[in-house]
């Protein structure tokens, strides 16, 4: 595993007859926030679901926190947090219900921490998910994902569809929580601004493989200005989609 919390080697995965990931090789270093960038349909969610053992690769090897996701999924999911694109808890559940439901599943679950995060994120604990806003729903899901102190946190487009103000607030709170816990995060997004603001490393996923992977400085180049980071990432992403590599 070479010290990485997530390591994929030549992963191939097809969905609906289309090859989504094609010999993908990728690692996530511990204690870092890695942003997985890619356009819609690039395979970001597929990669996260593979990492969580919810999909099975056709070929290739994968190691997540020392577990094989295919055969050790149950154990793996005790140490990996996951925040989906949409809050997908049962509509009748309140965030407090969700915590109560999840608590027995995780040996390291901390109810206090869940409530602390939920409080910090101002999650309405007694409102059912059916009546929560998407932002509040995502906050609740994030609190639930962080409560068992996961070694790896997988975020699947958590900021998509959230308005800019709410996104900034959510992003700030998320990053505080992540930084405070020195957590390893793999965040799949196509939001370049998010990538520019939170990423220690950026991986660009295009055409079923990692086109570029490195620190933000490595990706942007030494002379790139921070304010131009989203634009530069966009260029890189567009080039990767075309199969080119920009220097």
């Amino acid at each position: 595993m070479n010290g990485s919390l997530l390591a994929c080697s030549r992963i191939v995965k097809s969905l609906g007859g289309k090859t989504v990931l094609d010999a993908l090789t990728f690692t996530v270093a511990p204690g870092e926030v890695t942003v997985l960038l890619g356009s819609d349909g690039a395979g970001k969610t597929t990669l996260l679901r593979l990492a969580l053992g919810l999909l099975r690769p056709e070929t290739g090897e994968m190691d997540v926190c020392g577990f094989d996701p295919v055969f050790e999924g149950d154990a793996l999911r005790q140490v990996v947090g996951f925040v989906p694109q949409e809050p997908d808890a049962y509509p009748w559940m309140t965030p407090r219900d969700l915590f109560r439901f999840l608590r027995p599943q995780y040996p390291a679950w901390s109810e206090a921490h869940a409530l602390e995060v939920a409080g910090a994120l101002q999650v309405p604990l007694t409102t059912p998910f059916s009546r929560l806003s998407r932002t509040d729903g995502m906050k609740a899901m994030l609190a639930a994902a962080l409560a068992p102190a996961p070694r790896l946190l997988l975020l699947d487009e958590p900021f998509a569809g959230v308005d800019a103000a709410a996104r900034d607030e959510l992003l700030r709170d998320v990053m505080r929580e992540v930084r405070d816990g020195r957590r390893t995060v793999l965040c799949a997004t196509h939001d370049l601004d998010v990538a520019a603001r939170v990423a220690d490393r950026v991986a660009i996923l295009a055409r079923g493989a990692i086109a570029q992977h490195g620190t933000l400085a490595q990706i942007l180049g030494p002379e790139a200005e921070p304010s131009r980071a989203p634009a530069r990432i966009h260029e890189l992403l567009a080039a990767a989609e075309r199969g080119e590599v920009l220097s």
Partner: protein
Amino acid sequence: MKLLAPYLWKEWRDHRSVLLGFLAAFPFLPLLALLLLPPGLAGHGGIAPLAAAAGACIVLLAVVAELIPAEARRGKVAFLARLPGGLGAALWAKFLFLLMALAGAALYGFLVAWAILRPERVELGYLRGLGWVLALGLWVVPVSAWLPRGVLAVPGTLLLFALVALPVVLLVGPAQFPPRNAWTPGFLQGFLVLGALWAARASFVRGYRFGRGPAAAAWRGLIVVAILALPAYAWTASRLRQERSVDPRASDFHIHCAFLGEGGRLAFLNTARYDSNRDRYGALHTIILDLESKEWRSEADTPYGFGPESFAERGAQHAIVRRPEGDVVNGDVWVRYLDGRTGEALRSGWRSQEPAEFTARARDVARSMAPFRRADGGRIWPFRGGWEQEMPDGTVAAIADLPWPGAGGAGLGLVCSPTRVFDFARGRMVQVPPGCEVRVRPGMWLLSKAIRDRREHFLFDPETGELSPAPGLEGNDAPGPVHDDGRVFVADRARGRLSLLVPETGERSDVTVFDTRHELFTEVSDPAPCSWPLRTPGGARVVRVAKESGVWWYARFDPRTQTLLRATGAVGSGATELDLVGFLPDDWFLIVRDHRDLVRMKLGGGQCQVVAFGPQRDPRK
């Protein structure tokens, strides 16, 4: 349990509204019964258990069938799958919830019905049906995982049960299902409980894993079902094979009946396997056995067995043996004619299409074994539903208006009704007094009548109808068959002696029985069932001689020596049923012993040989 508790709570929250609706609405059912059913039925002891079953069924349909499809429909399978407990914890919680829901619904239904209908007593035996509801419920879970909608799960489960059980049911019959084998209860319980859990795990946990759906679940679940159904299908296949094959060496081999082909070389057997535990026969198998080489061949299982063509009475040889074939259900049946000498098929076709030369052969054989004689010695025989006789010029003529085949023998005549007897010697019908046992003879007939506790014997003039006391017959005398020359076999029960009597004069001549010393004979008779004279192919008379002890023998009468040549051979200890097949050359005859073996015995000798298929016997018989 700590892990399952939140899942149980989740299930309750998921189905709370339906269950509460059930609790609220169910009391209307017994109320409706109270209004609509007659008081006797509403207060029946089985009504509360029935309500319990009804409650369980309603919950089964409304809740259990939706446990998995509802998750899939709402897209929550992915949510459950990404939890550390995975789909397994969710599934076991669903089963636990199922048990609690069904038990709760049954208890509630029972109590509500008991409270509203107030039956005088409760017949708890009716609660056994709940076991089947529970079994159905357990299997509804895996089946519902294969289907997009829960409403299809219950009929789907019933169809699955039918597919698994149908071959067995078809084989043993609904009344015999489940078969009473030692392994049946264990297999059924295992199939219904453990099988359901296994199939559900394969369907839901494995089938829905990695983002798969109902199709993958169905594939995996059905593999489990196929494995589980294997014992039932294997048992069925084994039983079918047993029933559709026949092994004469097996202990359950059973000979229904046998016919002897012309010449005495071949025996035509109708056989089956006999299950003494259930007193049930397997498929019918026809076998052709070569009595000389002992080789046999099965003629395949068939809805019909061999039947005689020429002569219905036992002991005959058959020029042609026929076996109906075809589709019984559609009525498309034809007859296969087999050559009694060779066993080869003569021709298939309708009976009316039988070639004339075969008819002639069959007639010749029937003629050679003709049971009756006219006064001038002309032979009379039954043939193809009627009676035929040979005329003095050698031609064959039919005898009109004689009944067939139920008419019993009356000496040398035929009883056509209680007061009408046909006299073959005279060739006409004669009216007789009612209630008499008639023996038709060339001269005066002999009539016997029970008067109070004794039998009296009379001479009867068929020309005038006059009766007169028969001389020379006493109360201890038991008249038997009429010999061709008109004399009557008589057993003197007091002395145990046999004789031939001339009824008109009372003159007797002693008849000896081969190889006897001090035995006492009490009866001589024509063999059952028709009491027609029984003859060997050579025309010699065969009678049945019984001892005081009830033991009897077939015996051929030798008129030259006035001796009854009985077969003295021992047929085997424990043999209870002997069935005459036919007479072979040189005074041999063939019998079926205890529906199991073919035994050859000799008249006038002690030889007794098992021809086939002994000596195995079913110890249970």
